[in-house]
């Protein structure tokens, strides 16, 4: 089963729509609630990052018999130093983002902690691609 979502830059009111849809779908499939929680937390943080830090992008989710794979890609600006971005507490978030309850530099570490497989690739001026997977 494949799902695709567009994620617009700056539109915080819509952040969480993809994670919400996927949550409902996994519930219907009677996946273990603990597994559902981990993957939707990762997806939600990834959505928020595209809204907060990029010019926009999209998410692809594929559910198979053994798990779920998620690809989140945006069209820039890219991350200069991935190692730094992965550190807990590192953030370039604006005050507006912090007022939304995000921007503490915990998103990427949260994604890492809540997924079984996680890779992040980024090129300045091109964009960022997050790929992660959780097994059921």
């Amino acid at each position, binding site marked *: 089963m494949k799902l695709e979502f567009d994620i617009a830059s700056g539109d915080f009111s819509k952040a*969480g729509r993809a994670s*919400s849809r996927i949550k409902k779908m996994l519930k219907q499939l009677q996946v273990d609630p603990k597994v559902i929680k981990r993957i939707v937390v990762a997806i*939600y943080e990834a959505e928020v990052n595209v809204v907060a830090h990029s010019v926009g992008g999209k998410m692809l989710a594929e559910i198979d018999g053994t798990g779920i794979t998620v690809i989140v890609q945006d069209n820039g600006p890219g991350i200069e130093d991935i190692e730094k971005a992965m550190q807990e507490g590192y953030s370039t978030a604006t005050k507006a983002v912090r007022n939304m309850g*995000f921007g*503490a530099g*915990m998103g990427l570490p949260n994604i890492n902690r809540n997924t079984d497989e996680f890779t992040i690739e980024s090129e300045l001026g091109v964009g960022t691609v997050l790929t992660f997977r959780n097994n059921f």
Partner: protein
Amino acid sequence: MKLSEIIELTNAKVVAGDTEKNHNLLRAFSSDLMSDVLTLDTEHILLITGLANLQLVRTAEMADIEVVLLARNKRATPEMIELANETGLVLLETPYSIYRSGGVLFKNGLAPVY
């Protein structure tokens, strides 16, 4: 702690969700930082917060939080109430501060997450 007890102790008003459902809260957590809330792996928790926006309702949905108490007269927006009713979140508003809400609930036996 029963939801009805939390409502009574904090002098709260219910603005969204089904209070007839048997909500029994085991612990409480307080934060305005949604990424922090998303790190919790405890179940049946009450979140006490001063952040009143849609992200709060989305975060509660993803973090499996059943009840949120908005402190110090922070008002839930119509969009928040609509989304909360859709996701089944109970939203409460209290005139008490985060400090006082937490204090009174702790004193009456609601355990902290940390």
